[in-house]
Every structure is written in structure tokens, then in C-alpha cells.
């Protein structure tokens, strides 16, 4: 057996550079990536590391004020706080799961309705696009007027069919579901776009074959289309959940600081914002943010594993 000895024909064995242009071409991999990586390092990695450090100190009042290293005390404080922290975790989970579930089901139904071409498709697409690009704060203000208990159109409509007026955003128990409704209005279109892209990229053959074999429309959806769509469905869940977990704009626009007087829409993001910029409790706020960050990472990790599983 003869062994042929080959030197790897990579850039390392190239002759030494002569001009700047040669040098740039040889190192283009890092030359191209470096500016973005430096930006990310300075503005993201470094501040994030600082937040981790802050979470281990009793920094409060002013970031410039001297602070003491207190180890994991902030985490103990936060994790044993059943007054604000755990309810905020509960609201974040409730908001995310409810919004996500409704958006996925509605989004799938609308995507299926749009799947095969029809006349007037263009207009439906415009209607889907507009909520998606609308400024969330403005959307929050818009719903705030519609859901106003006294002058809002929502209660006026209920009045026409004889249902008593609802408190909507100003009710202690109705506020959070109302904000979930707003999230559904704004972001179901995004799920529709993603799922529709998935549906149009599917090959027609499995569906046709099942049709020839006499499968009903429902059977074809649950046994053919949905399993084939699973990777796309998981991408949609992934992208939507990242944003839903971090929802801030519409909550702040409709209920203001602290998520309302009973903290009825105070999610983790709103809570962390209040701790940082209303109470200046930087140490505790950083601990909340690190925990929040870990929750998001864990969630993403589970979903990406699922996605890999669905692709095999």
C-alpha cells in the first residue's frame, strides 16, 4: 500500500505576502468578520459580563456609587421573592404560552386558507403585512382607546349584542388577557408568513398520493402536511417565543410603569426594567435579568433540539 504524502493546499502554504492587497486577501476571513465581532464584543459581550458582575454586588442608587461584593445573595433574594418575582415569572409564562398557542393555531388555519392561489390574494397579503410592521407602541395606544371601558369601541360592540361592558385593560384579571389579545393581533401575521413559506415549499406528491388513496382532507393534514411542516412550525415557535418572552412595548404603552397599579401585566422584562430604571436597584435587577436570560436560553435549547429531531 502506497501512501501518498500531500501537503494541505491551504493558505498557510502560500508564499509570504508581498503587498497589503495580498495580505488582505490571505486574511480576508478575519478581516471581514472582525469589525462586526469587535462591535458585538464591545456592545454585547462586555456589557453582559458586567451585568453578571453587577448581579453579585449590592449596587443600587447610582451605578457610580461604591458597591460591595455580596456573592449570590441577590439570587437568594430574588428566588425567595413570592411577592413580585414569581408572579412575574408566572405572567411571563402565561403570556408567552397563551399567545404562542393561539398564534400557532390561527396562523396555521390562515396559512392553509391562503395556500392555494385565488383572486384577490394580493389584498389579503396587504392586510396581513400592515399589523406586522406597525409600531408596537402605537398599536398599544390604538388598543388602549378601543378597549377603554367608557368610550372604547369594544364595549360599544358588546352593548349592541346585549353583553355588559367589560373592564378590559383596567381590570385586575382582564388586563393580561387583553394584552395577549393585542399580541395575537399583531404577530399572528408573522406566523402566517413563515408557515405559508413552508407550505409553498412542500412537494405536492405526498398529498396527491394520499388523495388518490382516498384520504380525507383532515387525514391528509394531520398525517401528511403537518408532519412535513414540523421543522417550519418549530422555527415559527422559536422566532415567536423569543419575542413574546421579551414583550415590553405594548405592556408599557397600555399599563405604564410596574405593569399597572396591581402589577397585573408585570412580566419579567417589565419587572427588570422597573428595578433598573425606576428603583435603581441594579444588583437585584441584574440577578433577575440573568435568571431571565437563562430561562430564555434553556427554552431555545429545548426547541432547537426538537427541531433537529423533527428534521430526521
Amino acid at each position: 500500500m502506497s501512501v501518498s504524502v500531500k501537503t494541505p493546499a491551504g493558505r498557510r502554504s502560500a508564499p509570504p505576502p508581498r503587498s497589503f492587497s495580498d495580505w488582505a486577501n490571505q486574511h480576508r476571513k478575519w478581516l471581514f468578520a472582525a469589525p462586526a465581532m469587535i462591535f458585538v464584543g464591545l456592545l454585547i459581550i462586555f456589557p453582559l459580563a458586567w451585568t453578571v458582575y453587577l448581579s453579585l454586588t449590592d449596587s443600587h442608587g447610582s451605578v457610580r456609587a461604591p458597591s460591595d461584593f455580596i456573592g449570590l445573595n441577590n439570587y437568594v433574594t430574588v428566588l425567595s421573592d413570592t411577592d413580585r418575582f414569581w408572579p412575574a415569572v408566572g405572567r411571563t409564562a402565561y403570556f408567552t404560552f397563551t399567545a404562542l398557542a393561539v398564534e400557532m393555531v390561527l396562523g396555521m388555519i390562515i396559512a392553509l386558507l391562503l395556500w392555494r392561489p385565488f383572486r384577490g390574494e394580493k389584498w389579503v397579503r396587504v392586510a396581513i403585512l400592515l399589523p406586522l410592521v406597525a409600531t408596537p407602541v402605537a398599536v398599544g395606544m390604538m388598543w388602549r382607546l378601543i378597549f377603554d371601558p367608557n368610550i372604547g369601541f369594544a364595549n360599544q360592540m358588546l352593548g349592541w349584542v346585549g353583553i355588559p361592558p367589560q373592564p378590559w385593560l383596567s381590570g385586575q384579571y382582564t388586563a393580561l388577557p387583553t394584552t395577549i389579545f393585542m399580541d395575537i393581533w399583531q404577530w399572528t401575521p408573522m406566523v402566517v408568513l413563515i408557515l405559508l413559506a413552508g407550505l409553498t415549499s412542500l412537494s405536492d406528491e405526498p398529498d396527491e398520493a394520499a388523495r388518490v388513496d382516498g384520504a380525507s382532507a383532515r387525514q391528509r393534514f394531520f398525517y401528511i402536511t403537518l408532519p412535513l411542516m414540523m421543522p417550519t412550525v418549530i422555527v415559527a415557535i422559536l422566532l415567536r417565543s423569543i419575542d413574546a418572552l421579551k414583550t415590553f412595548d405594548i405592556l408599557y404603552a397600555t399599563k405604564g410603569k410596574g405593569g399597572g397599579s396591581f402589577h397585573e401585566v408585570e412580566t419579567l422584562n417589565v419587572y427588570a426594567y422597573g428595578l433598573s430604571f425606576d428603583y435603581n436597584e441594579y444588583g437585584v435587577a441584574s440577578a433577575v435579568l440573568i435568571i431571565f436570560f437563562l430561562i430564555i436560553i434553556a427554552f431555545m435549547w429545548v426547541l432547537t433540539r426538537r427541531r433537529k429531531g423533527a428534521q430526521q
Partner: protein
Amino acid sequence: MSNALLPAGSTRVDPQAAAAPARRRKPLSVRAYTWFRVGALIVVVLALLAPLAWLFASSLKTNVDIYDASKTIVFTPTLENYVNVITRNNYFVYIFNSFWVALVSTVLSLLLGVPAAYAMSRFTMHRSALVVLMARVIPGISLLVPWYYVFSNMRMVGGFTVLILSHMFVALPLIVYIMMSYFDSMPLELEESAQVDGLTPIGAFQKITLPLSVGGMATSGILAFIFSWNNFMFALVLSGAHTKTLPVAIFDFVSYASIDWGGLMAAATVVTVPIMVIALFTQKYIVSGMTAGATKG
């Protein structure tokens, strides 16, 4: 479609002849679905557009009319709120601020992001890409406290530079993400043959790859612009009286005592309409950007 429904053993029919009666008399279930589909889509369109129409209608009402239930649909439109928003509340300044911050942060992010996405795609730098994309997952607030500290020490809080940098935090990962999937799908052969013809690798990138990826840059650039225009949280903390962007300026119409509903709705319309107009003209790019990477591994 109708041929596929024929029993396998049936004799071949002329497709034209078979299609004609099928068109005249579709099965009842198909017709029922068509009507269901039309009805359902009308409901969807109404549900999506009616609130926006309501926003716009309210912006044309006086505050007296907004409180009057009998003037819900029939009212005398007035531009009073818009005059109020633009003259008395300096909205031209905020419109300019929003536009300037969105434009500069988008252009700078494209300058940094496109070459980076190219390198990450061609040299499969998965770990570096992951670091950039992590920015999409991090809660923005966790960066705001350190940013605020550093930038206030440099006396930069309230200036445009900080706002632009913070908006790049949103734009850059988005651009890298979209451009990577764009470069991944672009064949290597073009660049290779350009190099055979004597171009340097960077020359091939400049003269071949970049011109071919204008579509991808438009897609990611438009989305980055929209996200920056709509961004609220960073401007809420980092902007000053003179650099306020539109989403923050809206809150001028809300006070503890009362809300100027007409002004608020006019302001909300002023914020949203420019971005909707842009979106209508660039629909194709927005859809391809929103769905980038969704349909493949």
C-alpha cells in the same frame, strides 16, 4: 386535479373533455369549502384592518366626538389633531430623529454585517455566527444598565451616537442572519471562475458577489430600518429631549390626569403610516426577510 380522482382502471379520457364538465359541476364539498374560504378570509381581513381604520378615524375626530357614542361612525372629520401634533408638539423634529437614527444604524450595520455574514457563510464560522445571533436572544434591558453607565460617563447619553449604536444591536444580528442564508444559497462557482479570470478573492467579492446580493441587502436593510423605527425601549432610556424618537414622543399625549385621545391617535398615525407605506412598496423583500431560513436546515 380532477384526473387524479378518476379510478385507476378507467379508460383514458381526453383531458379537455374531462375538465369541462368538472368545471361546471364541482362536488358539493369543494363548493362548500370555496364559500367557507371566502367567508373566513373576509373575517381575517376585517379583523386585521378594522382596528387600524378605527385608529385613523379617531385621529380625525375632536375629543368631544371621541367621547360621543352617537358619532362612532358618522362624524365631521377635522385635521385639528394633526395640526396640533405637528405644530405645537414639534413632531417634525421627532420624525427627523426617528428617520436619522434608523437610516444611520441600518447603513452602519450593513457595512459591518454584510462582510461578516460573507466570511461566516464561506468559511463556516459557526461559533462566531452563534455569538452574533445570540444578540437576538439577549433581553435588551440586560445591556441597558452597563450602556447607560459607560455612556453617561462619556457624556454621550441623550446624543445620537448612543441611540444609533443601541439600534445597531438590533439591526446587526438581523442583517447577519438574513445575509448568511443569502450567501449560503449563492453558488461558489461564480466567484471561483472570477478568480480563475484573475480577480483576487476580495475583488471577486466586490465585483461579483456584492452586486448579486443586492436583493438580500435590500431585504435585510428594509427590515433593519423598520425595527429601528419601531424600537421603543432603547430610546426610552438613552434619548434626550432633542433626540427623542417618535415611539417615545407619543407619550407626550398621556399624563396621569388625562389623555388627549385625538392627539394621541394622530401621533400614533404619524408614527405608523410612514412605515406602512414603505412596507407596501417593499412587500416582497419584507416577506422574504421574515421567512429567511425558515424553510431549510
